């Protein structure tokens, strides 16, 4: 496991502004404006993405949001969150840093 994937290192995540996004029926639609890659996020991933404000550590998002709102063990939630964050960061949809991130796109409006 590389340092980047080490769950013990604190990581901060921020939504990229180089995306289009909309919450439709509980699922987040995201398209990278850089390469037009299209993603849909499930409810857990959507919650992580919504909390990705650049200031809240990923571990806190997992412990205080994911584990509270979904029936999942902390270990499983951390593993899934790490996998999700790594995948989206590779597409430039999430920024990841070991320091808090200042610039962050606003969360998108939710369709009624």
């Amino acid at each position, binding site marked *: 496991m590389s340092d980047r994937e080490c769950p013990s290192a604190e990581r901060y995540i921020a939504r990229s*502004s180089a995306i*289009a996004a909309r919450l439709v029926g509980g699922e987040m639609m995201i398209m990278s404006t850089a390469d037009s890659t299209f993603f849909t996020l499930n409810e857990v991933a959507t919650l992580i993405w919504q909390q990705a404000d650049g200031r809240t550590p990923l571990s806190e998002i997992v412990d205080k949001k994911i584990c509270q709102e979904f029936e999942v063990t902390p270990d499983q939630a951390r593993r899934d969150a790490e996998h999700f964050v790594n995948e989206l960061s590779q597409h430039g949809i999430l920024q990841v840093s070991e320091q808090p991130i200042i610039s962050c796109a606003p969360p998108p409006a939710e*369709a009624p």
Partner: protein
Amino acid sequence: MSLLAEMNQKALALGIPISVHLDLTYRCNERCVHCYLDHDDHGEMTTQEIRDLLVQLADAGVFFLTLSGGEVLMRRDFFIIVEEARRLLFNVKVKTNGVMIRGPEAARMRDLGVEQVQISVYSHRPEVHDAITKLPGSLQRTIKAIQFLKTQGLKVTIANVLMADNLSDNMGVMDLARELGVFYTLDPTITPKLDGDRSVLGLGISGSGLQTIFHNRALVGDVEEFCAPPPPPDEDIMEGYPCSAGHTACYISPYGDVFPCVQFPLPCGNVRQQEFVDIWHDSEQLREVRSIRAKDLSVCSGCAHVGTCTRCPGLAYMEGNMRGPSSADCEKSFQRTGIASANMKARARLGGARHLVQIQAMA
């Protein structure tokens, strides 16, 4: 099914307008011979009105936002509008003739995260392109714009509207697109002018011209498959919707009028008088459009092409009946397959032209 198709299905089920085409202005710096617009400003929405509208569209769930015109860059606040649209995380596509795009404009579009730019090119030959746009030097300026946009890494598509005067140039435009490293799309449809003037329809390509296009492997891929006779329609087809207009998509004019589609001039409301979401959900006109299934189409439901025809309900509406046939699409189906449509057979028996419905502003 692709992710995008799945989201479209979901939007349809939830009644969400996932795509909106917003014309920012009808003003233009070109005077294309086939254009359906009146280029005067009759009271365009202000910057603030458009800002407010964008917030409403985001709240309604709109994801794909096409900004078009007229020429969008004729609006001095164009980049303010794009900036607001991107702040609201729309997927923004811009349709333009490119004449006003130079390095700084291309860089600004890249910085703002415009996903795609579509540019009209009528011919690879300046004498043909410029004769259509009536703007000397326009092809050269448009090609420069494409190069500026490509340099910035933007996704660019050349849209090639085909008419009798430029029909023979489509392969030249395709080669130009390849040289420039951009996408190519063609459109053989000419629509009546907003004031009801049908004279522009005479500029369109003939039946034999359509047949040539539909049998060109470079344009359609597998010709045998593309031109195959239509299979018999099944229940799913007969219960299906004609197209996305009014279901998951709509059009908004520079004056705030809402229509099912840019090519479907049925006024459904005005965002200066009502919230967009109220028009989207409560407009009687949109409800009527949504109620129509293939089985309800007066002539087309009995046509062999019903399952494969590109029938445009807006063009049908302009012929007088949104449940009726669109003759231009009948012609396409015929030229593609060699099989006459039910409408063509009926017209051959009865003859006679129908009056067009003109676009109207809301009272």
